[in-house]
């Protein structure tokens, strides 16, 4: 099963554009990343610029509305993520606990939905894809 480990650094919600992580903390984090990789569980990872450089698009009344960051109501924002592949939720938790996080960092673990998780009706909905693609000329 796949989990996304979302790193949520406190203070990132209103960090100035161009804010960069501390090289020392990055060093420790790289050692941790290497552990994940050597264990064969790491699939992907990325860090994100602060939300002050981001944009939110909302859909109030079906009308798209574009808002530049920082976002006043945001309390917890994602600063980066890892995608890992493990055998159990407990294994994902065990990996998360090994992260050299600081006082202001929290990791949220979220399991990635897989096809086999879908109930029969969703699976059936997905099984109609080929026909749909055929109609768009993207035949399979």
């Amino acid at each position, binding site marked *: 099963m796949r989990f996304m480990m979302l790193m949520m650094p406190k203070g990132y919600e209103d960090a100035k554009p161009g804010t960069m992580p501390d090289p020392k903390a990055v060093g420790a984090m790289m050692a941790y990343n290497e552990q994940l*990789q050597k*264990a*064969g569980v790491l699939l992907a990872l990325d860090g994100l610029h602060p939300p002050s450089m981001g944009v939110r698009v909302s859909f109030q009344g079906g009308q798209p509305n574009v808002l530049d960051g920082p976002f006043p109501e945001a309390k917890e924002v994602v600063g980066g993520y890892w995608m890992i*592949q*493990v055998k*159990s939720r*407990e294994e994902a938790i*065990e990996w998360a606990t090994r992260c050299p996080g600081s006082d202001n960092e929290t990791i949220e673990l979220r399991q990635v939905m897989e096809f086999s998780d879908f109930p029969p009706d969703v699976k059936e909905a997905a*099984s109609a894809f080929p026909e749909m*693609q055929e109609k768009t000329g993207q035949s399979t």
Partner: protein
Amino acid sequence: MTATDIHRAIEAVWRIESARLIAGLARIVRDVGVAEELAQDALVAALEQWPESGVPRNPGAWLMAAGKNRAIDHLRRNKRIERKHEEIGIELEARQMAVPEVEAALDDPVGDDLLRLVFTACHPVLPPEARVALTLRMLGGLTTGEIARAFLVTESTVAQRIVRAKRTLAEKQVPFEVPRGEELAARLTSVIEVIYLIFNEGYAATAGDDWMRPGLCDDALRLGRILAELAPQEPEVHGLVAMMELQASRGRARVGPKGEPVLLYEQNRSLWDQLLIRRGLAALDRAYKLGEAQDGDVGPYVLQASIAACHARARTPEQTDWRRIAMLYRELVRLQPSPVVELNRAVAVGMAFGPAAGLELVDALSAANALENYHLLPSVRADFLMKLGRMDEARLELERAVSLAQNGREKALLVERVQKCAASTS
């Protein structure tokens, strides 16, 4: 935390730590069988103590310390036995390590332990199924029960295989080491083969009612990725990983809603896992770059990964570069002559140059009496015959394929094709 929670947490720690633990202990006791038992003892100690004391802050270090104590006890005991034997005049090879040296060895951050463990578990002195069982157990952290379920054999069969394998390694005095020079290449081939065998059993189960056992594919992939980290300079290792990532990317498209197999050409490509495809293509790229920097030769796993990459890159089946695939298979036949590869080549040739060209190759295989009991030979032959409009012959071939298929899902698919074929002639 409830007892079950703790138990599952320990299982998770075991999954992460067992291989390093066994490898570290094997460096002390110089016997992977003994090391594995010592590691199991440490696990039992954790199962007894952690529900009371809670999971320690650094569970890996805890397990290693517990294992280390047991290893030292084991060496002391052996030393006593040796001394006794010496006293009664039996000559024994002197133990290489005294206890203080053991402590030093443990603090030495040599990263090769895992690699040594891989090479020992996959030693050619063991029959392939024993290598597979030992690798899953020692490197994959799987229990005997899990291995038994994956390979549809009884737990006692797996347990016996493991016991016998450990005994063989001890009797043949297989050293706990990474081989050097020419020996390294030969042994690496065995390691790659073992991981490939595990993957294949998960990808196309040879028997039983499930067409795939994705758990086993995941285990093989993880082992392959570990190996790529341990032996980063070996093109074939990256080739193996690339091939597995690319094949696994098709996993969810390969099985229909009722668990039936969906063949490559009919798969819904939007279900292919793009993350795994990207990883596979990147690994393949690494393999080629390393190969070019070394002798420029392309090995069989890189070739197989290249074939898988041709499929992965085609957004629709019609875009598949069958000519390139046929060419890659020709190379593969040259490197690893085998009737199964030849049959795959026939499929590719049929797609690239028409069913008559494919049929010619299949007929050559039939004439050579190769693959007599392999259901895919008549199945592929039937496919060409149908495309050539020779329906009666095709039906006979499909019936033959049905009688040979071992996997329940595959059998059902073939029966369906027989019916379709019969319907088209009546």
